[in-house]
């Protein structure tokens, strides 16, 4: 049976968030700083002032009845609109939450074991898995075990707190790769090769601006190497991705910069270190492996019909959720189904649907009968349509994806249609049979909403990204899609897939088929300058950009988090009695923290510890911080052979105490700074803005 859904909550961080919010509302923290804090807790700004989107992190999309109830409860109590949205990364997000209510929402969710931590911002986002992980007859292994282990390892990990940009990871349980690894920053695919079981590792994929197909960086790794390998790719991103140009700071651009071979070499350099730091650890995620069957490949989303599980007598029941939107009554209704039929979980899927695993075959009809009054039921051919929120709530939206998507359908061939409101690819248009994203084109003096088309995408094993077609005025997109569907139906050979059909016919054929629809005559401009659902002329609101790339990072903050990562490695190396490596980590920590403080004070970030110590002494003659760093620098310069275990422990303690003193000073110098999460455990340095007690007791319950 499937593993239990794990609790990912840290109650203390919610209280810290609440205190920061109160300080922000009192005007003691600047908007930029607070934005970074709230993004880390999964809270985005919205197109509408004063209300926010709260994104819940749901690894592998797995939820319990209690959790569905908690989401419904929070939705009813705090959100102004009765709707949650299932995302293509298997998250659930609720919109229209007033900023003041966000801590209460986080607490309600936390009581059910749900976290929003690192669902947004420059972090590792929700990890996704093939929808039938643990249930599929084809699987080599239940990858939810590995996914859960990876989530435990990376969530709140210092390495993952201030990445150059977001990072997306997927797990698939067999070579069919239903989690669509090719579009991910990092993808793990369970494989069976030459009698061995392990993972194929791909990296550098991505959609949105300049889509990239991931490259294979490891054809095969053992299960025990999973975490070091994953960490090496994250470290590679952290070290080399360009932090200054956020449009180019996803890891896919490193593949361009270094070339595939160079990228792999850089990854291997990181791996030497991560592997050494993790050496000897026996607590890696593991599960039972087997060859797996050769049955039907379920596909990237929820299965399109009831699917027979590997467990005898049990089935997966898919539930279609139009464009991923559910209200509180539906959430509660599905929770009741789980309870009534004794089911332990429901899953959100990448195609914005739900599925119920472990249903006894004889209960299937009763479950659908139970769901019908809620307006929910089995997927129907043609309804495989995915849409991002677009201009309904997203600050980046260009077109109204949620208005046009319900007008589209995939027809009898059940084509997968993916609708994004801008180029950022949240609806994953390049993986759809037909994918479209919104843009504006200036023609005859008018800005005319258009959809850029993509045809023949498939993110699964053996697939490829869709091929770019013409850009069509949004008023004609229904006609365009209907025409393509008709042509496919008429010229399809045998059971030819849409993917194969597009490649056989060639994109020139589709360009020609749609050519007349792209033409805009001067007299048509006024009529076409209107987006679906709009009364007036199309206009893209200027909202000062989105928050997807995170708020500006404070340099000393990222220095402290990097130092915290080095501290973990330092202690791992010391434990392994690799003193030279441990001392090197400690030296790096001193440099990072010292440089962070010097830069905060407007000084020059010297590379050497001695020079840094002198610089600090010059900047802060009244403090002991520079002199103490000088003393530490001398000690750290002594060869590894001279150190005994107790002396090293003492030295590292001194370094940690110094780090904490630097944090204390930095927070008193910059009163908005909060370095709490980057400090060694056992130390607490409350940020200055938090010394004032909140007016009400922070914890309601």
């Amino acid at each position, binding site marked *: 049976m499937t593993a239990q859904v794990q609790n990912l909550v840290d109650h203390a961080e919610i209280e810290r968030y609440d205190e920061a919010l109160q300080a922000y509302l009192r005007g003691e923290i600047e908007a930029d700083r607070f934005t970074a804090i709230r993004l880390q807790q999964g809270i985005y700004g919205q197109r509408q002032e004063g209300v926010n989107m709260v994104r819940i992190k749901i690894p592998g999309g797995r939820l319990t009845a209690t959790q569905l109830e908690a989401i419904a409860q929070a939705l009813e109590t705090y959100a102004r609109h009765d709707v949650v949205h299932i995302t293509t990364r298997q998250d659930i997000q609720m919109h229209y939450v007033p900023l003041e209510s966000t801590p209460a929402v986080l607490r309600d969710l936390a009581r059910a074991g749900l976290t929003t931590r690192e669902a947004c911002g420059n972090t590792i986002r929700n990890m996704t898995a093939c929808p039938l992980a643990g249930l599929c007859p084809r699987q080599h292994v239940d990858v939810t075990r590995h996914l859960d282990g990876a989530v435990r390892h990376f969530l709140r990990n210092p390495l993952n707190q201030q990445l150059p940009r977001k990072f997306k990871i997927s797990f698939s349980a067999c070579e069919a790769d239903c989690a669509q690894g090719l579009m991910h920053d990092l993808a793990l695919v369970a494989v069976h090769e030459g009698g061995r079981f392990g993972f194929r590792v791909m990296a550098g994929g991505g959609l949105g*601006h300049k889509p990239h197909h991931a490259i294979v960086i490891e054809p095969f790794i053992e299960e025990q190497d999973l975490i070091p390998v994953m960490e090496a790719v994250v470290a590679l991103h952290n070290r080399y991705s360009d932090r200054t*140009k956020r449009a180019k700071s996803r890891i896919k651009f490193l593949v361009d910069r270094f070339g595939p071979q160079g990228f792999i070499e850089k990854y291997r350099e990181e791996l030497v270190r991560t592997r050494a730091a993790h050496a000897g650890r026996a607590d890696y995620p593991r599960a039972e492996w087997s060859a797996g069957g050769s049955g039907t490949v379920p596909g990237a989303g929820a299965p399109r019909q009831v699917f027979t599980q590997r467990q005898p007598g049990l089935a997966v029941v898919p539930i279609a959720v139009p464009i991923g939107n559910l209200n509180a009554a539906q959430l509660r209704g599905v929770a009741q189904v789980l309870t009534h039929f004794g089911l332990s979980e429901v899953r959100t899927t990448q195609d914005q649907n739900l599925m119920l695993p472990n249903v006894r075959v004889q209960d299937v009809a009763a479950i659908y009968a139970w769901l019908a009054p809620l307006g929910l039921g089995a997927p129907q051919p043609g309804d495989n349509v995915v849409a991002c929120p677009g201009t309904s709530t997203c600050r980046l939206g*260009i077109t109204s994806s949620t208005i046009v998507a319900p007008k589209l359908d995939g027809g009898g061939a059940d084509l997968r249609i993916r609708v994004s409101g801008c180029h950022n690819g949240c609806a994953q248009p390049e993986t759809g049979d037909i994918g479209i994203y919104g843009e*504006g084109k*200036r023609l005859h003096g008018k800005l005319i909403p258009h959809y850029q088309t993509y045809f023949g995408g498939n993110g699964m094993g053996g697939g490829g990204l869709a091929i770019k077609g013409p850009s069509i005025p949004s008023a004609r997109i229904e006609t365009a899609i209907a025409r393509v569907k008709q042509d496919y139906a008429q010229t399809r050979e045998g059971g030819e897939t849409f993917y194969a059909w597009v490649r056989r016919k060639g994109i020139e054929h589709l360009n020609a088929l749609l050519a007349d629809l792209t033409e805009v005559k001067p007299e048509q401009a006024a009529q076409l300058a209107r987006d679906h659902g709009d009364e007036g002329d199309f206009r893209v*609101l*200027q909202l000062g*950009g989105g928050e997807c790339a995170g708020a500006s990072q404070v340099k000393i903050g990222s220095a402290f988090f990097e130092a915290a990562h080095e501290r973990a490695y330092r202690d791992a190396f010391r434990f392994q009695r690799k003193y030279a490596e441990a001392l090197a980590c400690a030296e790096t920590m001193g440099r990072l923290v010292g440089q962070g403080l010097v830069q905060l004070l407007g000084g020059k970030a010297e590379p050497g510890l001695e020079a840094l110590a002198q610089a600090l002494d010059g900047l802060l003659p009244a403090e002991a911080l520079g002199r103490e760093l000088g003393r530490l620098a001398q000690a750290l310069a002594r060869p590894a052979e001279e150190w005994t275990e107790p002396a090293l422990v003492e030295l590292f303690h001194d370094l940690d105490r110094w780090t904490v003193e630097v944090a204390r000073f930095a927070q008193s110098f910059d009163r908005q700074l909060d370095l709490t999460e980057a400090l060694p455990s056992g130390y607490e340095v409350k940020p200055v803005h938090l010394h004032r007690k909140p007016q009400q007791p922070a914890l309601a319950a």
Partner: protein
Amino acid sequence: MAYVVTGACIGCKYTDCVEVCPVDCFVEGPNFLAIDPETCIDCTLCVAECPVNAIYPEAEVPPDQVEYIALNAELARKWRAITNRKDPLPEAERWAKVAAADKRQYLEL
């Protein structure tokens, strides 16, 4: 806020920015491109595309380039939209090496 093309563009006109703009907000003059601040949606895509780093968010335009903020708005009303990429100017590579501040006098209106 909007993004602003600054002096570094003069004489180059690489037009890589035009290709990625999701709202066609660039206009074109003889040896310079400008962004229509009324149309720009701050998506940032153009910034990374510019081979000569000519594009900045309005709030971060270098002090010696601030006149380009008003100039972009003015030229956007005067010049024609450019919606497709084309070849850079013949001497773009030579002009790319000239400092932005030294190019202002060569701007053709």
